């Protein structure tokens, strides 16, 4: 990871802004802190208490997912940057202090990661390179989430039907039967598109003719929606900064895009890079759909928004031709999201199955991602140190399970793979291990 001033400035600006948003109670990244915010805004809770709750809810994520994903891909991620700024923002007693703490965190992360990375490159056994193995299983695994989501929500028959269709689509794209020669589409993109379409159709079909029975939640929403609208200019600035960072290849939006983007940025063939970036954009777009109901509902009921909005700034940022366009696109997108927020809330009440689909989508995404990361990490440790690496890895992973999973499953595999790499290097230095390929 090369060090650049632009990167440090952009990251520091974005973390300072998000810390300010949290300080003023306008937006937080963590969906679980949002509903607690009104307690603080309306005076029933003090800053120290809210800060300690935020810390408790986030620390496990920062320490596991945040660090593991960035160490294995060299790309920054929102858990690492914005969960801490949620905490710092509510902790700070003055606005300038919030901005200062937030900005300092950004600088510390960029500096810290680049130091760690240059330290890691001197190791005799290259384990950071081996972690590149994570990307292919993640790409292929993620593309299967619609099948799981459909089975989860609509039973095994529709699940099996969808599985067959999706497999057929995959092979037809792979063999170039349905697309013109000059269009580069990853088979996974076709799978995802068809799978999500089927999921949406099943949900709408189930809701046909139904109208929402319960009313009366809207009135309490009104005042709080206005509060979000007032924050629009600040959200636009945040959206622009984050989109610029993502476009410049400093930052990835989520677990479903980060490994794909890392592979894209290191691919030699430009058309391959382009296809992978498009795939990452599609992945984050679909993941975004899964999060819309949760973010919309929590935002409307609390008047506190998310610092990355509904997350649709990510795909725009990856696809934009340069950072300036990305920034403009990010600002416009996040503003548009805010403007349609209450409409989206009403639409969601009309289609309860779509709302349920979002739960199924998120459940399914985590399940496929856990499997993909476990298998990808296995490939990586075997590449690092054959079955010596494998045994160390399995021991570490199993230990976490037995201890009641102090590290969340999503991060357990990459973290265990990184530790395996460190242990292999230690064994090598002690002359207890020789890598196969020299």
């Amino acid at each position, binding site marked *: 990871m090369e060090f650049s001033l632009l990167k440090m400035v952009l990251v520091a600006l974005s973390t300072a802004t998000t810390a300010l948003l949290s300080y003023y109670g306008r937006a937080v990244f963590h969906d679980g802190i949002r509903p607690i915010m009104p307690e603080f805004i309306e005076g029933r809770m003090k800053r120290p208490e809210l800060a300690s709750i935020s810390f408790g809810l986030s620390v496990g994520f920062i*320490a596991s997912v945040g660090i593991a994903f960035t160490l294995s891909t060299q790309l920054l991620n929102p858990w690492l940057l914005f969960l801490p700024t949620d905490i710092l923002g509510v902790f700070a007693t003055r606005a300038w202090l919030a901005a200062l703490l937030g900005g300092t965190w950004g600088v510390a992360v960029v500096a810290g990661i680049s130091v760690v990375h240059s330290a890691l490159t001197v190791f005799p056994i290259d384990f950071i390179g081996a972690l590149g193995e994570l990307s292919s299983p993640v790409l292929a695994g993620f593309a299967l989430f619609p099948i799981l989501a459909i089975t989860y929500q609509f039973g095994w028959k529709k699940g099996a039907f969808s599985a067959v269709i999706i497999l057929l689509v995959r092979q037809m794209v792979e063999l170039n039967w349905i697309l013109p020669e000059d269009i580069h589409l990853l088979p996974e993109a076709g799978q995802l598109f068809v799978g999500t379409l089927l999921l949406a159709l099943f949900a709408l079909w189930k809701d046909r003719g139904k109208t929402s029975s319960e009313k009366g939640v809207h009135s309490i929403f009104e005042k709080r929606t206005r509060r979000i609208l007032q924050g629009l200019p600040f959200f636009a600035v945040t959206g622009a900064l984050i989109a610029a960072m993502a476009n410049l290849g400093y930052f990835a939006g989520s677990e479903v895009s980060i490994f794909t983007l890392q592979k894209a940025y290191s691919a030699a063939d430009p058309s391959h890079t382009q296809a992978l970036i498009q795939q990452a954009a599609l992945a984050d777009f679909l993941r975004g759909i899964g999060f819309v*109901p949760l973010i919309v509902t929590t935002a409307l009921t609390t008047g506190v928004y998310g610092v990355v909005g509904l997350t649709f700034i990510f795909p725009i940022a990856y696809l934009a031709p340069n950072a300036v366009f990305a920034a403009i696109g990010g600002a416009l997108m996040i503003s548009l999201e805010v403007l349609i927020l209450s409409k989206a809330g009403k639409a969601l009440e009309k289609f309860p199955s779509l709302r349920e689909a979002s*739960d199924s989508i998120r459940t399914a995404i985590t399940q496929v991602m856990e499997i993909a990361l476990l298998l990808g990490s296995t490939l990586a440790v075997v590449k690092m140190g054959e079955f010596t690496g494998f045994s160390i890895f399995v021991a570490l992973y199993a230990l976490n399970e037995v201890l009641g999973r102090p590290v969340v499953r999503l991060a357990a595999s990459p973290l265990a793979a990184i530790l395996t790499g460190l242990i292999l290097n230690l064994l090598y230095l002690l002359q207890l291990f020789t890598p196969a390929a020299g």
Partner: protein
Amino acid sequence: MIRIAIGGLRKEEIRKAVKETGGEQVETTISSDFEASKMVQAGKADYYLGACHSGGGAALSVAIGLLGYTKCSTVAKAGGRPRPSEIERLVREGKIAFGMSVEAIEEAVPMIIQSILQSSSIR
């Protein structure tokens, strides 16, 4: 009969754990976080259970919005483990919505159901 509404992630897993502990004494409904919280609000269910990655996000955020912060509690955060004594206290205090991290479902749900059944038999 204790009626449990389930929202959030991995709802089937929660239902299984609820049924295994509560057997005939519990009735479960699986729904979205929003619908399930509304059921509790409307008195159509007694308790809400939900899981997500942190134990407080998708698991509980909508429930907090609808039922109020004082009625809800996260019993197992990401990286933490549920404690039976803590859960008993929360049930006694009258909390009606519980969130947990997905990693802790198997451990936390039986504790919650046992506490609920105990407190309801005393009443």
